[in-house]
């Protein structure tokens, strides 16, 4: 170490996130880390390594799979978990559909919001008392007041009026049986911090984060990837008759359910180029890439009340 006594902003954020993860491990008896294969959750895994190595993680990893995820991301998810030698649990929205607990309004409806149901079922199945997630406060207005330790009642509901005051770094993760804590170690990170951290740590990412060419159509001004092959062998987002399919060079800023994640045009094919693009972009992460949030300014808040991450 040098003589420097001020932590760089990334070192500070890292130290805070490690502290939060250790609080979860110290206070909760059966936590789980939500891992999607996306960039934010890949940062969480690196932070967990920094927090707990040379030991094993004191929690398994879990992904709630909508069945409509990009194959590259699913493969990457499995590979990363295996490399780390940590246990990965996958629970799928399709199983909830089979059970009848998730009913789509119509075949093409986005499964994204239905992840909440599957998540709650998994929480109950394993008796998890805390879920560590990669949400950030800068993602969306409704998250700006989210606690780092966020309390959910027996129905997984988040009540903005009934959250515990959170002072200093004294986190209160106590819960009664059936209740649940969501802990967000990278609450204070911005999209830029995440990319800078990925760059500094040399983290590997699924290939769709980097510029690549794929068939897309333009729908209401958004770039929509079409004819996306799925792990199941099916095709997601089939193009509609009369739509013009173009091959565009794009990258994803967030990855999630195919139905609601749009890419941006970009030729950034490595992390430093992405850091540069992020520094000069003019559109927010969600504004650019989340097809589901545009309906209403408050749609995230609504989903969170219903138990969304």
């Amino acid at each position, binding site marked *: 170490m040098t003589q420097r006594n001020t932590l760089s902003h990334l070192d*500070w954020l890292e130290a805070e996130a490690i502290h939060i993860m250790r609080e979860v491990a110290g206070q909760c008896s059966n936590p789980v880390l939500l891992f999607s294969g996306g960039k934010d959750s890949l940062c969480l895994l690196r932070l967990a390594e920094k927090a707990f190595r040379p030991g094993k993680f004191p929690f398994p990893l879990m992904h709630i799979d909508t069945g409509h995820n990009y194959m590259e991301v699913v493969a990457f998810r499995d590979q990363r978990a295996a490399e780390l030698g940590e246990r990965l649990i996958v629970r799928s929205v399709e199983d909830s559909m089979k059970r009848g607990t998730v009913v789509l309004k119509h075949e093409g409806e986005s499964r994204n919001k239905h992840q909440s149901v599957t998540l709650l079922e998994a929480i109950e199945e394993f008796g998890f008392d805390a879920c560590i997630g990669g949400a950030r406060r800068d993602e969306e207005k409704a998250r700006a007041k989210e606690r780092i330790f966020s309390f959910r009642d027996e129905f997984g509901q988040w009540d903005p009026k009934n959250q515990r005051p959170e*002072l200093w770094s004294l986190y209160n993760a106590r819960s009664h049986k059936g209740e649940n804590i969501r802990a967000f170690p990278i609450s204070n990170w911005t999209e830029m911090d995440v990319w800078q951290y990925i760059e500094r740590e040399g983290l590997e990412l699924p290939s769709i984060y980097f510029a690549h060419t794929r068939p897309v159509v333009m729908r209401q001004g958004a770039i929509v990837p079409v004819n996306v092959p799925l792990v199941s062998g099916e095709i997601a987002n089939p193009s509609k008759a009369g739509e013009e399919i173009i091959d565009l060079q794009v990258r994803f800023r967030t990855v999630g359910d195919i139905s609601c994640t749009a890419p941006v045009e970009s030729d950034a094919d490595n992390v430093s180029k992405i850091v540069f693009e992020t520094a000069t972009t003019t559109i927010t992460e969600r504004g650019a890439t989340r097809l589901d949030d545009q309906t209403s300014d408050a749609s995230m808040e609504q989903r969170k009340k219903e138990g969304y991450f």
Partner: protein
Amino acid sequence: MSQKNEIPDHGLLRFLTCGSVDDGKSTLIGRLLFDTKTILADTLSAITRTSEKRGMGAVDLSLLTDGLQAEREQGITIDVAYRYFSTGTRKYIIADAPGHEQYTRNMVTAASTANLAIILIDARKGVLTQTRRHSKLASLVGIPHLIVAINKMDLADYSQETYERIKGEYLEFAAKVGIEDIRFIPLSALNGDMIVDRGDKLNWYEGPTLLEMLETAPAAHTEENVQKREKFRFPVQYVCRPQDSANPELHDYRGFMGRVEAGSIKVGDAVTVLPSGRESTVKAVQLGGVDIGEAFTEQSITLLLADEIDTSRGDMIVKSSEVPAAVKQIEATVCWMAEAPMDRARTYLIRHTTRDSKAKLAAIDHRLDVNTLEKVPAEKLAMNDIAQVTFKLAQPLFADPYLENRGTGAFIIIDESNNNTVGAGMIL
């Protein structure tokens, strides 16, 4: 640790903004975000639409900080919101606490993690009761640096005289309360004068802009703490025992994981583990299983000791030359945060560092009237009350005075029946 996109990194500064309703807090924050280009085009077009819908001429930057649905409908903010911006050289976290009368607890919450506070004053109104209250709270919560921003200078003809008069008023009050590090600045949040750009209306003011003040303010409290020669405090959060019998190196590995709450530590230092009082020396300081040799305040690390000492979460490792006293009674300033008043007959849980203890109220010394700033006698504690109290503890705590060290001077009070956090305390 190298950074490829090399820019000087002046760390991270957490600050809060306080002011009465309509002093321009939201506009100021919006301005900071906007002028540092944190606001992106789609957000801007959304608030432009809303501004138009509400029949406003100019874009209302205060809409940027609007939070949740319910609050938007009521048109008020009722909780602490966190915002982020970066100048390329420094990252900022703003805690935005509303200025309403009844929300003392929100301000205490916002202040608890801040290192600097901006107190907003409306140039037309001068120092108000709320200004005094916010300043007093900021000093109670131990915020080392205050910036008093005299806003809406455009509505006061950008008058230097007005500015000087308010500054004088404030200084008189500050001397009584004992607030030391204060800086003053005239602003127009609406027009953006003296925030990031100087503008051309306040030429008589020769000091730095608001952003320049923020850029040069001491970052997290580490720099100052090193100067204060802080005592090393390391509450144990988690113990790592891989017990990997196949790997001889890990077979006996016993890592004590935690964050350095104060001071610094290096290999070879003599340490004492509390409460057992057992002594040892530091064998390794690690991050992620990698040796880093030494560490200082706010770093999350793993300590390995030369001797096998039974240690678990809730214990504290300190330097043997600086062992704190174990106390079973504490005097503290408490802010009550729950709807239900404190029940003197009940037992609460106090969480201090990583340690919990059952606690009972022994006495209420006095309550602070946050408006007159007078000490008044009190029988009970209701929501938003601030009082000096004494607690009796079932377990000893290893505490330092809050004003010496926030990390080991702060505690929260938990109601075990519903697990809510009902109060916040600062040890005297």
